[in-house]
């Protein structure tokens, strides 16, 4: 790929809340626009920030369709709403009589790369939640099943499936680093996991680097929201099952969900929209149902029992308090 040529990025919003665009605007110490420039990316059009409006936008889309404008990266934010009855008209692009469902299927094959920004565009997300009132799906997935709006066999002109930057909303860095890697020609099929997510963030679990890790190690659990302990045993946390380097990079300068005291709801995963009671851990006979992703259950139970019995008093006390009530000190 010619890295000296500016790459055109077209961003369209489908069944979206606009939150991924808001997150992207957060990136870059000198602002997102400067950062796009650094990576040689030209915003061909973006619904939130571009000057062109109305007919001028339709002209851009028409030029792409006629092959007069290069489409290097085509990015969709939001679920593809296929209803009612397959028309897509729950989400029409205004000024046109076409749905975003139709626009997406027309433009995606013309793009070198297709990016689904956010869990909605990747897998369906919240709008696909029961009872799925608009028949929402992702670009290339419906939940965890390949298919979606473009079909399981779709690949963009450069031979990649849809790149799924999942998350609700994704970390601004996940979005920008994916664009940057595509513009640099540095993202290969092997850089994606089995659900199309870039491994640079999807190769981690949200649990990795959690600031509550000592509480997790000793199974010293929070009972109430705002307690400092581990959120997994009682308060619904799915960070040990959810992909994302959420606790290895700063969100908004230094936060993360678990750091802020609420459960990871696995917003990077297909189907997260259909779990209920996010702050209650489902249990059978007192044992949490959702245990860490790939750990044998019996081992987990054994180690948990062992670590609980070894929990330092300090950790036990701090776990059920909203602030540090006992400081670390040498064991006598």
């Amino acid at each position: 790929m010619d890295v000296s040529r500016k790459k055109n990025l077209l961003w369209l919003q489908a069944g979206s809340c606009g939150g991924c665009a808001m997150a992207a605007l957060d990136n870059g110490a000198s602002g997102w626009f400067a950062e796009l420039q650094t990576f040689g990316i030209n915003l061909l059009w973006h619904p939130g920030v571009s000057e062109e409006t109305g007919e001028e936008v339709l002209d851009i889309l028409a030029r792409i369709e006629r092959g007069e404008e290069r489409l290097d990266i085509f990015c969709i934010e939001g679920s593809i709403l296929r209803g009612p009855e397959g028309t897509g008209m729950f989400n029409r692009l205004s000024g046109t009589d076409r749905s975003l469902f139709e626009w997406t299927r027309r433009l995606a094959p013309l793009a070198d790369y297709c990016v689904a920004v956010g869990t909605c565009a990747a897998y369906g997300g919240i709008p696909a939640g029961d009872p799925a009132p608009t028949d929402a799906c992702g670009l290339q997935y419906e939940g965890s099943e390949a298919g979606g709006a473009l079909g399981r066999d779709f690949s963009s002109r450069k031979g990649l499936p849809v790149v799924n930057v999942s998350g609700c909303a994704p970390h601004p860095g996940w979005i920008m680093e994916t664009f940057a890697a595509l513009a640099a020609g540095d993202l290969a099929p092997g850089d994606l996991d089995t659900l199309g997510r870039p491994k640079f963030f999807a190769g981690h679990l949200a649990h990795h680097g959690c600031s509550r890790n000592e509480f997790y190690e000793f199974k010293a659990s929070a009972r109430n929201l705002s307690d400092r302990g581990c959120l997994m045993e009682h308060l619904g946390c799915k960070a040990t099952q959810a992909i994302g380097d959420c606790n290895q990079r700063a969100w908004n300068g230094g936060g993360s969900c678990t750091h802020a005291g609420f459960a990871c709801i696995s917003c990077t995963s297909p189907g997260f929209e259909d779990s209920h009671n996010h702050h209650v851990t489902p249990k059978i006979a007192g044992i949490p149902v959702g245990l860490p992703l790939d750990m044998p259950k019996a081992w987990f139970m054994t180690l948990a029992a062992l670590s609980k019995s070894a929990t330092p008093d300090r950790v036990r006390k701090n776990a059920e308090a909203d602030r540090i009530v006992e400081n670390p000190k040498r064991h006598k």
Partner: protein
Amino acid sequence: MKRLVVGPFNRVEGDLELTLDIEEGRVASARVAAPLYRGFEQILVGRPAADALSIAPRICGICSVSQSMAAAAGLRALTGVKPPPNGELAANIAHAAENIADHLTHFYIFFMPDFARDLYAGESWFGPVQARFKSISGAAAGEALPARARLLHVMGLIAGKWPHSLAFQPGGVTRALDLGEKMRLIGVFGEFRVFLEKALFAAPLEKVVEISTPEALAAFSEGQGDFAAFLRLGESLKLRELGRIALPLLSFGAYESAAGHLFSPGIFDPAMGEARALADAGIAEDADFSFLRETSRDPALAINTPDMAREGAYSWAKAPRLEGSPAETGAVARQAVHGNPLVRALITENGSTNVFVRVVARVMEIARLTLAAEAWARAIRLNESFCETPPPLLRGEAVGQASAVGRVEAARGALGHWISVEKGVIQRYQIIAPTTWNFSPRDAEGTPGPLEQALEGVKVGEAGAKSPAIQHVVRSFDPCMVCTAH
């Protein structure tokens, strides 16, 4: 008569479509359509009550905290749980940060770039305005976006992330701040103030909030800074005469705590120049021109079912009405209701709201809120709790049968969540968002919504659908279309 269709409409949150009937170069009649329906209210029904806290914020990526706060207020009213003072302070600080960020994004990214379009190239002021405010390449965005990102570090401290956080609970916020974090919070507002006092206002915030008459505002417009640049454009382009309407101005009251509201709730009548109290009843929604089946006009009883075949329908939004009338909401309403003397004077001088006063009210609120939020950060008492233990309903237990309404002010105005719960499960959920009010379609009487009225009479001239006047009027409301129909 000529008919113009305007869309896609960008630099708003979401998308909208205008259908304008033009007679003698002016808009004779306007229709505004929300072209997206996702069915959030249908998705919320049948879920445990507390799930509203994870689903509702995801209606909107720009006012996610406002949606969280409305859901939390509704569940608070259902359960009677009361947040401790720190919980109220921290939630209000985060909510203020979001609202300030929204106002800033609107001014720099959505609204001002319209003055930098080539259509204005012949104007004497064009050169510097284009260099400063041009979309994407203008100098201002390169300063405003980093300032916005730094301001949103408030979310890293209180909410974990933005948008979409579960930190905002009926009983407070989910993390107790420590001493270092309290200091960082104060520091964020201090740094943001530096940006405001240099770039936006070029004056101390204390001086900005003192501006209380149109004459003082005119004097301020002679200064440096981006707000002064807007004020001069306002004079030059006669924005006081543009997008005028005289509808009741509605505010649900903003930043509530045990001490009351920072901005009080109520209704302001632009023609009479008087405020009055907001009655509990009096809000109803018509669906006569919406792609939704008719159920109840009462938001507490309504259930949404899409119906694309509905005759005469042209928007996914319903038409909320206040005591039978369309109503305008937003910063201009909030400040007028609360008694801001400048905003009231700008409204009463011609008996209406308009493009100019909508923007003035919004930008002035940035100054007021930054001062307030910094004071709230200092008021946090670190030895006290931030969160009350959740009552059984919020721990997922199958208890209770009740209905309640959560009302807050989002950046764009009055936001209400009407919630009905039975045995712990949501039976009905109805949301009326600020832009549902402002960009509503016609009601049962055929009365147009606020934007539809504000567009009537606007001169489009040769430019037709590209007329900048149309762009200014629409964006002066700071529409959030993803909230409008949800």
